[in-house]
């Protein structure tokens, strides 16, 4: 029993020994191995390194007109060229064809420009004619309106006069004779006016025929080449025609004036009896101001109707007539049939006006004759109606006349308004037309191209380098067409080269204009002592900044890939630790420092967290505020450590 217990005790101790070794081995595996370093004084050196391409400071583009066939190319990219050296050659055969083509195009353009100019002039004449016709229509409408209103007014006055005579002679014995006299006098006046209107129309037709004959005569002269007629003779003919037309207008105006004068004189005596509706005048105010005077004649026949209306109408008509006749004197002779049609069409309103006048006079005359016949018939039959009954009939007739007068007034205003609008439309401004100027510019451009082509042909199609430089880009190929733009891009040797690199915004804090910089490229000696020329916002990437360094002459060639390095040293900091020692949590920095603690296993090393403030740092060092004393800072660990973690120093 004792031996058994002793054996078991020995076995237990052996087991414990084995587990002792195992536990220590396991502990050695799990404990973090760390490297430490003490904080020390130092400078934070910020090195900025970035790579980029060497580019020329100034480039010059060599270009020719697009579409030329490249015959031979004498240079290649990266080749040095001197001023005057032939870069490439253009096929002259094709060049000559293009020159001929350009010349043809110029001729065609000239002809087209001439046609367009002629078309524009013709259009201007048509516009003027349309405007004149609109003015004539307006005047005609005014005349028709005045005529109709005057006639209605005259009839109204005649009825009133008849009523007045009946009322005054109702009680007298010779009342029937007085009425008969009045009616006979009225018949004679109407007959006279009717004859005057017929005579006026005949004279008007005669003048128009004369004008047509004159136009036909001019055409015949121009056709036979016998246009040697003197200008004075032609002027006399024109003056004669104008005089004739003036006579026509004066007579027309005179007839209308007589009619209106009669109405006006009667109206002056009767103004107290009938107030013209003022509302008829209101529409006239909306018409053109220059036409208001004429328009007033339609609404206020009692106010200088004999002068106000004819004079503006005469003035406008005269101007129109002059324009119409001017075509015949200044414009080249036109087709006789067309000329006759044009003259007759232009004077058609005057004839229509004369017809309307004749018709009106004829109607008035028939009405007067009817009244006289009716009166004579009544007297002869002895069955003269009662005076009161006669009086009632005449009053009813007056009301009808008044209504007719108002209708005529309204119709006149409407037609006048429509004609005024047509006149406005004809006079509306037209949009600008720059066709001629554009043709001129196009022609200048074509001439310039032609000059360039001829100049190129003069050089036998050879394109030469304008400067000493380096060919940086070739946009042409042998046998292909030249592009629309740069054919060959040259870097100006005299302007030197530069290197532009892109740095981040963070890096840009440590680089500024004037900082010393070094540039090196593979296979080239490093260039020291250069200066940063500029630091600007990036052109390719807005988040980056472009750093430019000017390169000395004859060092690096354009297109080479090189690296720029700059360095900026800070002041001396008292407490610098390797940046690997820095840990960050929630935006705060801290380091782990090594601490010793006593435990069962002996003196153990543990990691103790210490919060720090970082003053500056670069890729390798961090400057801390304050001091860490003689503490050993953990800079590396093979395991993740935390506050109080047991650690072991790396051998």
């Amino acid at each position, binding site marked *: 029993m004792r031996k058994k*217990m002793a054996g078991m005790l020995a076995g237990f101790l052996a087991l414990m020994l084995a587990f002792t070794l*195992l*536990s220590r081995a396991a*502990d050695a595996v799990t404990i973090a191995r760390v490297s430490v370093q003490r904080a020390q004084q130092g400078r934070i050196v910020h090195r900025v390194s970035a790579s980029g391409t060497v580019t020329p400071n100034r480039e010059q583009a060599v270009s020719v007109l697009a579409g030329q066939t490249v015959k031979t190319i004498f240079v290649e990219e990266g080749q040095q060229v001197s001023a005057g050296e032939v870069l490439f050659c253009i096929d002259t055969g094709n060049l000559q064809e293009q020159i001929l083509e350009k010349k043809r195009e110029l001729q065609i353009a000239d002809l087209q420009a001439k046609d367009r100019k002629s078309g524009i002039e013709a259009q201007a004449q048509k516009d003027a004619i349309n405007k004149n016709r609109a003015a004539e229509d307006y005047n005609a409408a005014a005349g028709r309106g005045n005529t109709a209103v005057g006639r209605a007014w005259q009839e109204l006055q005649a009825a009133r006069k008849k009523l007045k005579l009946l009322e005054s002679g109702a009680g007298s014995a010779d009342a029937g004779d007085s009425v008969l006299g009045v009616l006979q006098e009225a018949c004679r006046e109407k007959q006279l006016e009717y004859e005057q209107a017929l005579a006026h129309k005949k004279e008007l037709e005669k003048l128009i025929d004369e004008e047509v004959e004159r136009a036909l005569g001019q055409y015949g002269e121009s056709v036979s080449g016998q246009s040697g007629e003197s200008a004075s003779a032609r002027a006399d003919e024109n003056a004669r025609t104008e005089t004739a037309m003036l006579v026509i207008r004066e007579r027309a105006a005179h007839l209308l004036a007589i009619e209106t004068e009669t109405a006006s004189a009667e109206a002056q005596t009767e103004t107290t009896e009938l107030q013209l509706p003022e509302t008829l005048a209101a529409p006239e105010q909306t018409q053109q101001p220059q036409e208001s005077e004429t328009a007033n004649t339609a609404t206020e026949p009692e106010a200088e109707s004999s002068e106000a209306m004819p004079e503006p109408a005469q003035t406008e008509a005269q101007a129109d007539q002059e324009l119409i006749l001017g075509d015949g004197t200044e414009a080249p002779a036109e087709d006789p049939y067309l000329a006759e049609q044009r003259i007759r069409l232009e004077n058609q309103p005057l004839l229509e006006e004369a017809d309307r006048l004749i018709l009106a006079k004829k109607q008035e005359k028939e009405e007067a004759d009817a009244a006289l016949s009716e009166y004579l018939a009544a007297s002869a039959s002895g069955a003269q109606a009662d005076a009161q009954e006669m009086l009632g009939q005449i009053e009813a007739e007056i009301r009808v006349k008044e209504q007719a007068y108002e209708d005529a007034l309204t119709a006149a205003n409407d037609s006048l308004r429509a004609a005024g609008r047509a006149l406005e439309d004809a006079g509306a401004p037209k949009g600008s037309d720059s066709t001629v100027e554009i043709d001129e510019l196009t022609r200048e451009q074509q001439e310039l191209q032609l000059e360039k082509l001829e100049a190129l042909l003069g050089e036998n199609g050879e394109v030469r380098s304008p400067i000493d430089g380096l060919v940086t880009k070739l946009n042409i190929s042998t046998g292909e067409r030249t592009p629309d733009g740069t054919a060959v891009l040259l870097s100006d040797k005299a302007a030197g080269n530069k290197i532009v690199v892109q740095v981040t915004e963070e890096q840009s804090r440590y680089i500024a204009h004037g900082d010393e910089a070094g540039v090196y490229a593979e296979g080239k000696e490093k260039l020291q002592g250069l200066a940063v020329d500029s630091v600007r916002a990036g052109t390719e990437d807005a988040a980056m900044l472009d750093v430019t360094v000017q390169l000395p002459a004859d060092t690096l060639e354009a297109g080479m890939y090189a690296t720029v390095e700059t360095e900026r040293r800070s002041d001396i900091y008292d407490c610098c630790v390797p940046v690997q020692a820095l840990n960050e949590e929630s935006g705060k920095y801290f380091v782990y420092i090594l601490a010793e603690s*006593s435990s*069962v*296993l002996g003196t153990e090393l543990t990691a103790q967290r210490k919060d720090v403030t970082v003053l500056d740092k670069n890729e390798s060092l961090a400057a801390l505020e304050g001091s860490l004393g003689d503490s050993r800072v953990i800079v590396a660990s093979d395991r993740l450590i935390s506050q109080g973690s047991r650690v072991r120093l790396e051998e």
Partner: protein
Amino acid sequence: MKQKITGLLLLMPAMLCCSPIIFLIAGSLMDAGELRTCLGPVLTGGEGYVSWHMLPVFPTLQNYVELSLDTPQFFVMFWNSVKLTAGVLLGQMVVGVPAAWGLARFSFPLKKVFYTLYVLLMMMPFQVRMLSDYLVLDGLHLLDTHAGIILPAAFSTFPVFLMYRFFTGIPEAVLEAARIDGAGHVRIFFSIGLPLGAGGIVSALVLDFLEYWNLIEQPLTFLKDKTLWPLSLFLPNISMQKAGIAFVSSLAALVPAMLIFLGGQEYLEQGIASAAVKE
């Protein structure tokens, strides 16, 4: 039948006495969650009362693995305890056995005074001697060393007192016969005294092992360096997170004591009986 009834009646208090060991074994097999549920009110200051399961709800050997592989501190303290106990027992063998033999078999002046002084010192508890021990050890520069624990224990009076009883029980005639045969004092001590007094020596060593294996006050007072601490100071440093390890470590500490006890049980009973006999 009567014996069976008596045996059953005695089994119940025996089980009651063994319940701490049963609890210890059950706790060593519980996982951390179950231990927190049972011991939380005590170890973490939570509300309620401690509860205990005779059998673990989710038995696991995780605590054994953790103690064996992840707790090197335990083994440091275990071997410290082995070292201290072995040193003390060895010292007592070297010093105490000859002293007891001398007191038992030799007559010299003031013998009774020395014996009385031994008994008197044996009766004094550690708390009384603590200050003087500390001053002496400090003067000898033995503080914070294992020697500061081993040396005072090696000269302990209790084993001398225990072995004295066994040595005095050896008949004088046996010793006289040896002398006649020409044996000297050393020969008589090693050939006659030690074999005949082996029961006393073993019982003294067993009792001392149990005492020094569980030594707490002396290491706590004289050892500042934690690397020198014995296993008896491991448990007080166990937190709630390592409660499972505490149970396993207690069992591990129990094993050597139990083996020593079982191996020397016979001599221990003799020694206790011997110490109880009045002179």
